[in-house]
């Protein structure tokens, strides 16, 4: 009965309650949508990092990771890649030769990370092939095709079919160079990465670097589901003793840190919204108990305990807050769900975001844990907002309160 009384009390002043509920709804809706937006952006960034740049797992010589020196290759790397490719949950395993090189056009030159890949295997691991805006993926010419990004093409002032010269140190530390023809131009959402990554065929680069047959610096592995990555890491460690097997989180820990930090910022953001709402609700409830002073005096007179009156005010405040909170969560979820399937176009801020590796077409991502946490935060706000007004209410003296006009 106390619940019914509290609920009906909320609607005694409909306009005032609706104003409070609307304020809470808008606040929570904005909080949820912003969180879903930021989370969506982060997830897209991580997804891009895994699919385009890092892959789920990497096998390499630990000294290669530290020094990037050519001599720290995996002997028989392509054979090992073939064996790892057959493991369960492995969607693809691509052996790569990775060299620091200089790429030059007639106009200009720049340092890049040159990766020699087997096109068929690499396609199953990364999606660079899907990011082509011109040409083909390392096919079309018999010798020395090269794939560069649009950003680098612009920088070197070259086009599709242009010739470039790639200069590098071979295994014997001799300087060597070869001419390559641009067969494809790609563009990912991370322009900083694009500018420094150039792809050639494995065989072409192996010949140029004088590495032995089957040598590879990195075996990049894509899993069919990232949840299996840690399990596969253990399995591969036992199959490739002496080699370093790292997950994408270990290779690029900043991605997970940024994601975790972003979550914390978003909760902080919602907490600030709720803090602002908290004072509004306290103010409303203080007005409510002042207006109902006589009634509270009557309740005390007829024998309603102060504990029950306290509980009634708490219930009333929590229900008022939760009415706004629940509708805020509902509308925030609907809005976020809508943008899960419809991109938000941030291309007007495109350059800055792409430099940081973020996609300018963002879709939101919402998860149940966040909704539960926000709902609990709203409930807590309701309880906190009720404490002072409820305390004021139970301090009324019944005889005095009954004299209120």
């Amino acid at each position, binding site marked *: *009965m*106390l619940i019914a*009384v509290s609920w*009906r*009390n909320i*609607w*005694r002043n409909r306009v005032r309650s609706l104003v409070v509920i609307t304020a809470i709804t808008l606040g929570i809706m904005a909080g949820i949508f912003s969180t879903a937006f930021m989370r969506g952006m982060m997830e897209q960034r991580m997804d891009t990092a895994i699919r385009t740049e890092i892959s789920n797992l990497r096998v390499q010589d630990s000294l290669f990771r530290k020094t990037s020196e050519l001599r720290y290759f995996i002997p028989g790397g392509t054979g090992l890649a073939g064996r790892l490719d057959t493991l369960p949950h492995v969607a693809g395993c691509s052996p790569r030769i990775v060299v620091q090189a200089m790429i030059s056009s007639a106009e200009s030159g720049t340092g890049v990370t040159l990766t020699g890949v087997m096109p068929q295997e690499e396609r199953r691991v990364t999606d660079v092939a899907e990011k082509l805006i011109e040409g083909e993926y390392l096919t079309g010419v018999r010798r020395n095709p090269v794939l560069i990004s649009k950003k680098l093409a612009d920088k070197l002032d070259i086009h599709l079919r242009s010739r470039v010269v790639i200069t590098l140190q071979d295994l014997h530390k001799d300087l060597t160079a070869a001419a390559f023809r641009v067969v494809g131009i790609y563009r990912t959402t991370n322009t900083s990465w694009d500018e420094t990554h150039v792809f050639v065929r494995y065989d072409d680069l192996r010949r140029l670097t004088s590495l032995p047959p089957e040598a590879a610096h990195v075996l990049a592995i894509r899993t069919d589901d990232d949840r299996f990555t840690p399990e596969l890491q253990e399995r591969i460690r036992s199959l490739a003793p002496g080699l370093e097997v790292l997950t994408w989180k270990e290779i690029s820990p900043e991605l997970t840190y940024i994601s975790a930090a972003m979550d914390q910022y978003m909760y902080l953001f919602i907490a600030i919204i709720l803090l602002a709402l908290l004072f509004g609700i306290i103010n409303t409830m203080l007005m409510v108990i002042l207006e109902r002073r*006589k*009634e509270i005096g*009557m309740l*005390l*007179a*007829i*024998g*309603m*305990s*102060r504990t*029950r009156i306290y509980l009634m005010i708490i219930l009333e405040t929590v229900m008022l807050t939760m009415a706004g909170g629940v509708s805020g969560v509902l509308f925030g979820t609907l809005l976020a769900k809508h943008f899960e399937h419809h991109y938000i176009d941030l291309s007007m801020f495109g350059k800055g975001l792409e430099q940081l590796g973020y996609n300018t077409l963002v879709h939101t991502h919402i998860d149940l844990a966040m909704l539960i946490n926000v709902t609990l935060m709203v409930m807590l706000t309701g309880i906190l907002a009720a404490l002072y007004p409820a305390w004021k209410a139970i301090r009324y003296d*019944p*005889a005095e309160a*009954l004299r209120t006009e």
Partner: protein
Amino acid sequence: MNIIEIRDLVKIYESEEIRVTAVDHIDLAFEKGEFTAVVGPSGSGKTTFLNLVGGLDRPSSGRVIIDGVDLWSLRPREIIDFRLHNIGFVFQAYNLLPVLTALENVEFIMHLQGRPKEERQRRATELLRAVGLGDRLHSRPSRLSGGQQQRVAVARALASRPKFILADEPTANLDSHATENLLNIMERLNREEGTTFIFSTHDARVVKKARRVITLEDGKVIADQRK
């Protein structure tokens, strides 16, 4: 048998500039089944007297003994609980909960007492029928006239099965027809069920119905007449 004993009851209101003795050394006793009016001019201490007897206001000195219990020796929490189970209140301004129907208003006090729902509903319906509101059970106070609201308040006061009912100027806001109606109901409840009523009033019609009239002036009892 005395149901209420009042011994040397004093209430003094003090502020920096003023000291008012609202109740001045009152000794009285009330028996079960009394139908008593406390009368006197404005400021004579009627409401303060009822508040002290009802445990709403703490006396400056003296004792209020209800059915052998010294009311003001109880702790504040126990006094609230004592009121819930022993004293019924009817207020001048009715003071019903506007969000509850007539039936729910009467039920509410039994809910506070922890009575089961079936019992609450049965008794609330019986009481509302007894005060002539059997056809307005589900009306909210805003849909009832002043007289009807006051009858709901009487039913609410009776619902907790109190030892006595304190009514502070119950007819002050009612027209003559509603006053007559309410007084007849209360008198019937008093005669038929032995409910003890103590009113404070200015109303000559209430005084006429009362079987005992206590007159206060400046916080003192200046007359105590039984008819």
